[in-house]
């Protein structure tokens, strides 16, 4: 019973947070600028068009009414028009979002698959070369600017070694992929096109490395410290006093306890990867929502940024909620 109350409470607070998010975005786009119209019409000087946009934005109405229209538009899926691409924002987003999500998700998987074993082994074999190199790598990783790392990777692997493709998007020009989910890794497999799959993978290597490296360092550190703490706990000592074998103690008894806290971090990391993805997309000319939003921002086109920010904030908050709820079910203690 307690569990359901908790979930309910969290959902309510989610509504409030999203409400705040909407207010913040609205204030930034419609209240702060001296002339918000500019953000939504760009270079247009056609009187009729300007008047039309004015009416659409209800700029002659009081602020709170504008906000009302804005929220109701959002709830109806109307995210406005992007004057720089001349498309509805929602349409542009639908095309660009999958690329971003694919990048983020693959990076997260790589991050987790590498960080957990590394952190656990570093803790078990503390103060050996494995431990030291893990710690050094994570320390460096956290400080490394992702765009700098991306550029260096391009220089080494593309320019010098010529083993990986240039930073020009998700696949070679001329490759045809039947789009089903928008996730090229899945789509190519669905179509049975292994060449295209390999091609997509090759284009993904560097961006994913650049994106996941920093977070991997963070996660490794966390896993390592949680594992060290667990290894020092009384029940592990008791297990040793019972003469149980080392691998059982480390990789079963301790591990189960140690991985729980970092798992909660995974949701957090996904949320942080969203931000990092924007930069990586720019460096690698990845056709995702991040680079699209930045292009719009540079042009002074506000509608795309507005939509992008809201969607990403929502995604982040929802992922956090899901992670929290999942944790409730994983830890048997809280279940009761």
């Amino acid at each position, binding site marked *: 019973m307690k569990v359901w109350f908790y979930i309910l409470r969290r959902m309510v607070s989610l509504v409030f947070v999203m409400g705040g998010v909407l207010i913040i975005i609205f204030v930034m786009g419609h209240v702060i600028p001296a002339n918000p119209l500019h953000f939504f019409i760009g270079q247009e000087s056609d009187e009729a068009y300007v008047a039309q946009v004015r009416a659409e934005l209800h700029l002659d109405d009081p602020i709170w009414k504008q906000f009302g229209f804005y929220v109701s538009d959002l709830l109806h899926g109307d995210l406005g028009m992007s004057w720089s691409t001349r498309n509805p924002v929602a349409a542009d987003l639908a095309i660009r979002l999958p690329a971003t999500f694919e990048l983020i998700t693959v990076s997260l998987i790589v991050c987790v698959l590498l960080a957990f074993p590394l952190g656990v082994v570093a803790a078990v074999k503390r103060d050996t070369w494995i431990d030291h190199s893990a710690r050094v790598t994570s320390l460096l990783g956290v400080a490394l600017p992702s765009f700098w790392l991306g550029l260096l990777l391009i220089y080494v692997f593309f320019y010098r070694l010529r083993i990986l493709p240039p930073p020009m998007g998700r696949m070679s020009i001329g490759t045809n992929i039947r789009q089903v989910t928008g996730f090229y890794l899945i789509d190519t497999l669905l179509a049975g096109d292994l060449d295209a799959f390999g091609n997509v993978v090759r284009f993904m290597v560097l961006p994913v490395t650049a994106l996941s490296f920093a977070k991997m360092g963070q996660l490794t550190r966390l896993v390592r410290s949680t594992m060290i703490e667990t290894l020092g706990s009384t029940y592990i000592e008791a297990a040793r006093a019972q003469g149980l*074998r080392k691998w059982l103690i480390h990789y079963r*008894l301790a591990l189960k306890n140690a991985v729980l806290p970092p798992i909660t971090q995974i949701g957090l990391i996904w949320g942080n990867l969203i931000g990092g993805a924007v930069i990586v997309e720019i460096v690698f000319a990845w056709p995702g929502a991040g680079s699209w939003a930045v292009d719009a921002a540079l042009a002074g086109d506000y509608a795309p940024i507005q939509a992008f920010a809201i969607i990403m904030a929502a995604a982040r908050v929802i992922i956090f909620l899901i992670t929290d709820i999942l944790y409730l079910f994983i830890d048997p203690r809280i279940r*009761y």
Partner: protein
Amino acid sequence: MTLSVGHEAQRVCGTDPEDVLLSLEDLHVVFETYFGVARALSGIDLRLQTRKITGLVGETGCGKSVTAKAILGLIPPPGRIVSGRIIFEGTDLLRLSPATMGSIRGNRIAMIFQNPRAALNPLFTVNDQIYFLLRRHQGLSRREARKRGIELLHAVKIADPERRINNYPFELSTGMCQRVMIAMSLACQPRFLIADEPTTGLDVTIQAQILELFAELVYDFGSTALVITHDLGVVAETCDFTAVMYTGQIVEFGTTEDVFQHTTHPYTVGLLASCLIGEEGEKLRYIRGSVPDLTQLPEGCTFRQRCDAAHEGCSENRPPVVDLGNGHIARCCIPPSSQTEDSGRDAVRRPPLLRAENEERMR
């Protein structure tokens, strides 16, 4: 009347060497920290008689837990055993390989931990934890281990063991956790059992039950036990022998009766006095001063700065072991000139003394 350690001390501690299951001989354990080298055990000598319960008493920080861990070979770095021997059934445990030691732990020597809830893995059921133990030492299958587990839970008087065995530790009360701990420690029928503060952290009402259960099981299984505690009441209730520890050394040892009735060492005297309930209007008694820093232990007797009977001789050498008869010993350098007859209780206010009858034996 100075006695050297080793063979001599063995003779002193009462009876036949064959009756001693485990003995610690001049064990030194240090912890190397940034603030200096802390001497946790400075030459501890202890002999544990077979099939008897010995209590190890002392204040927090005197080295009781370190002793237990040393026996099991679980001293964590930065601690290390510098010198000494631990003879268990004729073998020096310190010479054994880690693999052999691993098969002894939990099997022939077992330990019960202080905080029972913390000592059980929160994410595994009681069944799982017993299974791991039994599989390791006896190669039992899941089914056999479960059957044996239910028997064990029954032996420690846990109601409805078939259901309880599937519980997680958080579903059990603290008292039940301690019973489970006891059950697991006896699972392989160890020859030697160490109980580190088995009743601390339990309700007073449960304490009595657990103690009784513990003593009963130890006798039933024919094991030898070492009970580590700071609670003199526990020792008085359950232990056949009592060893008093201070800054890593045994300062007094003997049968519980001897140590409590014919208290000799000033420290023990002070400990007992601080437990006594006085009369109305009397001040509470305590031992003045505090335990010295283990990185800077004083020369000679480590207790002399707090001792009312200290004299210059106390600061020169480590005090010798004095035989008081019947296996009762104390590590103290009382000059023979200050001996008078007295009963243990009154020794509180006066310098500690040797009993006249023992004095005769020594001459």
